[in-house]
């Protein structure tokens, strides 16, 4: 009897033993999904437009794309909680422009009806094309791969067949967010929701779901993901020396593009559409701003980050190696400038998706060593 009791206790304990959730999302399935789009009563947190109108991926929210419904908010420009699961906000729909946002920025500034400025974000919203561009700037010629391919625009579904991650054909009609985030795996086993972690495989969904396709089908971006998407680090304040932040991988190369040429880096990913800016950045001297290029430990660049070489989330750098402990310092001679050092991928308050106001970068104008002058430390003197 005593033995059976022990077995019973063990059995009950196993049932209720807390399971470590190593996934981007956590919580009840009904936080995000509806099985038949016919729930009665209809939960308030689900989009009313989904009732009787089932959505892809059985999502219970509805926006201009499968992603927008969950990743937008009129009350928070960083993240909110959905049934205990933290959800990053990349489209703020409040009454005025946000003053705080995540590492990738916010689509507010490019969205028609909100910021409405095509120079300030990637045009990912359906039928909201770019008034100035007919293809990605710096396109290596991929804009004609199929009709409305993402290299040409992000606002219309592509037509044709394109091989995706894992050499599996991409779903038909992708556009917008899924033009970049090709390997969305909300349930991938990487690190718990709200906690930071290092991501370096397809099984983990790659860094921020940034995966390759075609020749890059088995590749993706590696990096250290800040658990809250760097919420709180992009509010106009000084966060130099932050102890927790995204950490980006870099590979020093003066030319090349794509994962094959540049490894599993964010710069490699950017060159999938903007390849000319890296592959043709050097010709007996820099002819375009260096990316995935080591910040020299000489001249004005040796003073990057000031006397203490503090890492600045406003002007991030790429590291030759990334682990589970983000650096609080920047190291000239080994760390690299990259695309994200100057740009935000989603949107920003500034033209060209810059991280700062370029018109306030005044050579010889004094001021703090921030923005361009974080690296070009003496050009503002």
């Amino acid at each position, binding site marked *: 009897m005593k033995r059976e009791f022990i077995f019973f206790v063990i059995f009950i304990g196993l049932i209720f033993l807390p399971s470590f959730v190593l996934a981007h999302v956590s919580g009840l399935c009904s936080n995000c999904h509806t099985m038949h789009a016919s729930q009665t009563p209809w939960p308030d947190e689900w989009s009313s437009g989904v009732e009787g109108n089932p959505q892809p991926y059985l999502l219970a929210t509805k926006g201009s794309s499968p992603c927008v419904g969950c990743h937008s908010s009129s009350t928070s420009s960083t993240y909110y909680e959905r049934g205990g699961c933290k959800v990053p906000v990349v489209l703020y729909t409040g009454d005025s422009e946000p003053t705080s946002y995540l590492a990738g920025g916010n689509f507010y500034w490019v969205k028609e009806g909100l910021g409405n400025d095509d120079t300030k974000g990637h045009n990912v919203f359906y039928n909201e094309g770019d008034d100035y*561009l007919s293809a990605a700037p*710096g396109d290596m010629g991929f804009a004609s791969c199929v009709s409305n391919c993402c290299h040409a625009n992000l606002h219309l579904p592509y037509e044709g067949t394109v091989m995706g991650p894992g050499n599996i054909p991409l779903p038909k009609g992708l556009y917008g967010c899924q033009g970049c985030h090709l390997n969305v795996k909300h349930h991938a086993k990487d690190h718990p929701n709200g906690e930071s972690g290092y991501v370096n495989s397809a099984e983990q969904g790659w860094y921020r779901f940034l995966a390759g396709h075609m020749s890059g089908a088995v590749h993706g971006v590696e990096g250290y993901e800040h658990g809250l998407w760097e919420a709180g680090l992009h509010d106009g304040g000084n966060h130099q020396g932050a102890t927790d932040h995204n950490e980006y991988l870099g590979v020093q190369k003066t030319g090349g593009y794509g994962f094959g040429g540049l490894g599993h880096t964010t710069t490699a990913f950017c060159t999938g559409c903007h390849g000319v800016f890296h592959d043709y950045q050097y010709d007996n001297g820099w002819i*375009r701003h260096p990316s995935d290029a080591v910040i020299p430990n000489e001249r004005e660049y040796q003073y990057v980050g000031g006397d203490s070489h503090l890492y600045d989330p406003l002007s991030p750098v790429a590291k030759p190696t990334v682990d589970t402990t983000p650096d609080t310092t920047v190291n000239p001679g080994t760390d690299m400038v990259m695309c994200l050092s100057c740009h935000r991928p989603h949107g920003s308050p500034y033209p060209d998706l810059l991280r700062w106001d370029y018109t306030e970068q005044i050579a*010889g104008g004094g001021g703090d060593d921030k923005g361009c002058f974080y690296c070009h430390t003496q050009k503002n003197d």
Partner: protein
Amino acid sequence: MKRAAVVVFVGIIVVAFLMVFGSPAMAKVTGVCSNCHTMHYSQTPWPEWWNSSGGPYRALTVNDCLGCHSANTGVTKTLGTSTVPVVFTTTEPTYTVTGLVAGVGEVLAGGNFYWADTSDAKGHNVSGIGTTSFTEPPGYSQATSYGRPATWDMSKFTCAGTYGCHGKPDVEDPFAAISGAHHTDDSCLKLATYDDTEAGSIVGKSYRFLLGIKGIEDSDWEKTASSSDHNVYLGEDRTSDTISSTHTISYLCAECHGDFHSGTGNLGMDDDNFGSPWLRHPTDYDMGNVQSKEYGNYGAPGTSDHSYSVIAPVGWDKLSASMSITPVTFSDDTIVLCVSCHRAHGTPNDDILRWDYSLMDAGSSTDPRNEIGGCFICHTTK
């Protein structure tokens, strides 16, 4: 209390004085980066002052040397919010060729490449401007003594680098040769803040980016010029026909035209007996040595106090902060230079002379310095 108030009042006055007069005027570029640079050479819409062809350019510039420093007309232009000296115009500038004007106030100190495009004899034919029948610079035989290549390649003649004047002579690419200079703090080259230990140390701290050359830069490139408002050139009062100081403006010229500057035998400005009669017009030689002759009357036309002449400039053998730049005293401050007679870029006159040589009519005037000027600003009784 009263004493404390006085101290505070004086302190405020001192601070105010320093704020107004204490900050050095620097010629390093200022303004938004996009005045001169493009990050990816793909901006939409394309700014109208950027060159839309020929790029991308090294150093992420929006144009090459001539592109930024040229205009349809004028001596300066605005790139965005930055003021840039113009050395090449597509329309002919006004230039009065008499020895009493010689282009002063009409072109910048270096002149204008416009005329180099019209005649081989009227300017340096840097890349893209005119054609030349020369295969090497006149007087080039001793080039290696001046750090230049033994064999000149005229096809590579350009603004900067090994086959140019500005920047590092040991770097062939003009962009690389001049790299960083535009953003260098060059207050050491300004009259109020001249620092002889820094001047000439790097390209950005060298007179007009001429590596190693010392001098005081006029703040508007002699757009306006007078006896009290002008470049101040370093010269040397040489006592032999040899290379001595490597910091004078004439030394820069000699890097390519060395035979006109120094050498043995028939090279240089003299034979083995230094002094008059000269074999070639002296340079880096102080007229104070011959003050007792006609040269002791040197002075700007229309003056009688030996005022510095911007028509026929002379050099000093020592430069210092806030030094007196007029009149001359014939004590190592009346040094004849290459630029006493020539402009560096171009003029309407053959041999890039400052004035029309054909107007220098000896014996045609009893007061040639004041009535003809030019050569006679120094040769005052000829």
